[in-house]
């Protein structure tokens, strides 16, 4: 079957069409923005063989600038839920330098990308290809030669993990992975409920949960002092 305009010719629809203008004048065809590009491409005969000519690039779909009504086809309900989420996460990143003792150059990371200490430490471990030890309130990072530290707003060097995450990312100016004896010296003097960590280990929870719970536990604990 031919692709023809048979119906139009048989019924002479054009002749009976009502339109404004003098008889004998041709109507301006209404071509929508997107279809114009499609017509042009179709005219270039891009079938199975495709078009390899340079013309192809010029007749590629125009870059979408204005939003098309109802496209992409997503229900309003879903759109609204996505948008509220986007508004919440607006704002620039918090970029800080990260140095590691012995490494030839520094790196930079965006603290806003992480939701807590475990992700941050994981990222730093991956970045510098080393392992950070187990964190404990009493002894700092045990089990490796490295300790993650940061310089806070007052210019003091602090052990990463001591303060709640939200406070950390707003006060951290730069990070430094300390190595060796200097690292081992950075334990905490404040004692906390030992049974907390013991209970934690008994239950067999992962390092990630443990580290995250440090924040909350500090808030619960009576011994907590604001810095």
């Amino acid at each position, binding site marked *: 079957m031919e692709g023809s305009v048979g119906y139009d010719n048989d019924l002479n629809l054009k002749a009976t069409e009502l*339109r404004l203008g003098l008889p004998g004048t041709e109507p301006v065809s209404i071509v929508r923005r997107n*279809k114009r590009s499609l017509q042009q*491409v179709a005219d270039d005969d891009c079938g199975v063989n495709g078009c390899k000519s340079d013309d192809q690039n010029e007749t590629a779909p125009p870059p979408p600038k204005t939003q098309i009504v*109802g496209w992409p086809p997503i229900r309003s309900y879903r759109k609204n839920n*996505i948008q509220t989420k986007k508004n919440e996460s607006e704002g620039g990143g918090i970029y800080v330098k990260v140095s590691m003792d012995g490494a030839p150059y520094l790196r930079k990371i965006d603290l806003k990308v992480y*939701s807590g200490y475990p992700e941050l430490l994981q990222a730093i471990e991956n970045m510098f290809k080393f392992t950070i030890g187990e964190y404990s309130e009493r002894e700092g990072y045990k089990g490796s030669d490295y300790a993650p530290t940061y310089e806070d707003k007052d210019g003091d060097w602090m052990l990463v993990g001591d303060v709640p995450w939200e406070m950390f990312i707003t006060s951290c100016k730069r990070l430094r992975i300390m190595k060796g004896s200097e690292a081992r010296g950075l334990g905490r003097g404040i004692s906390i409920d030992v049974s907390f960590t013991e209970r934690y280990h008994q239950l067999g929870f992962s390092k990630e949960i443990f580290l995250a719970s440090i924040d909350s536990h500090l808030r619960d604990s009576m011994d907590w002092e604001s810095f």
Partner: protein
Amino acid sequence: SSRRSSFPDEVLERVLSLLKSHRDRSSVSLVCKDWYNAERWSRTHVFIGNCYSVSPEIVARRFPKIRSVTLKGKPRFSDFNLVPENWGADIHAWLVVFAAKYPFLEELRLKRMAISDESLEFLAVSFPNFKALSLLSCDGFSTNGLAAIATHCKNLTELDIQENGIDDKGGSWLSCFPESFTSLEVLNFANLSSDINFDALERLVGRCKSMRVLKLNRSVSLEQLQRLLVNAPQLAELGTGSFSEELTFRQYVELESALSNCKNMHTLSGLWDAKGIYLPALYPVCTHLTFLNLSYAALRSDELAKLLAHCPRLKRLWVLDTVEDKGLEAVGLNCPLLEELRVFPADPFDEEIIHGVTEAGFVAVSFGCPGLHYVLYFCRQMTNAAVATIVQNCPDFTHFRLCIMNPGQPDYITNEPMDEAFGAVVKTCTKLQRLSVSGLLTDLTFEYIGRYAKNLETLSVAFAGSSDWGMQCVMGGCSKLRKLEIRDCPFGNAALLSGLEKYESMRSLWMSACNVTMNGCRLLAREMPRLNVEVMKEDGSDDSQADKVYVYRSIAGPRRDAPPSVLTL
């Protein structure tokens, strides 16, 4: 045959009452007059796919014993704001007839209908046995209407409010369930945003011992969730509230423990703003999960991968494209039983985003999940070769909905149209029932569809095709076609009229922003009196253009409730 059937009517009715599928019932009713009558007296559930195809009076006359009604109203493109606000599909006229003819009505399921608070109140007081109300993608009502339902429906088992345009005036409606009320089995209010009275909810859940589906809204916190779960370990489907507040260690342990007690749970959703760090609390539930809906949780690929490692039995998965191709690789690796995948875009309107998923993610899933038969995939790039590989791996597709988000975009590697991709789909997937196409497409795509997609029932087309020939191929070739929706395509009157003989066997046709004219529509209306041909005009458009055309078969004649912007020809 001259011998009368020795089958008493009562026996025939009893046998036919076991038939549930409405298609089987339609077939049965065509056998002979006796069977027609037996069928109509034994039918208790009626499904009406287009509320304007029939009138409530006609339905009530034919089926005297209906207890459950499913009604669908507006054309599907109304979900994307293409249908004017006051278009119609109002439920009220139906309720008035039902109140008179079906006083024992138990269930009402509505999709894309307009329903007012007055109608909800009328419903609540008119049907003493009313049990189940499900509203999907409806609009016109507020939480006051829900309050009426909660107050008056003493036997309610199901209240399912999904994705509606609801006027949320506050959460007090939930407190309207009387303290003596215990029958609720399904409660889904995830749609609503305002705070509900948590104490009232806690008491409600506590006393409804048969509750198996509970889908909370975003205002319910993790801590509150834990309290609810402690009293409802029998839940089979759970939609959490917000999954992101700071938990103490003790709270986390308690939540995890409450979840692990839910041994029947097979469906999980909600998880708004899910924090990766709390997802491990879900692991005990994940082992039995068959449906996981993460489409409101913007997870990263590593977060998804860790979670899916615990979900070996997953059959249906909905995610946001924040999981990227790497996340989809994890799907392929961990979920061999997967049958349905939906990937929604987190930032559909931001052109600067270069993330999301590509053809690589889809291909990875296809290698790992050979049983995949339903996919909805939003992406920013695709290739013909990738789609060919995908359907080779998964030949059993029944629903293939691919949305390449930039309209008219070609294969990004070869720069060719995406014709061969959809050609591969229709050639390989012989069971294909539903297809949505996208990308740069010429008439060749539609030649393929017409030639090969012999089981196709629903086709959605946007920004595609080169000429009338494309649509003519579809109308001529797809014998089982029931719903066709087209927007922004160069199909004109010839195409429209090529389906003249087909439209009566279809539910409906939608064409908007195509090249159809008023005269073409008038001709169609004249030739086919049993079709309703409706045109929606847009402000400021040319008088001769038919901007939006909606054609559907009807035994109720032209509708009388059309607003001025809708012309029935």
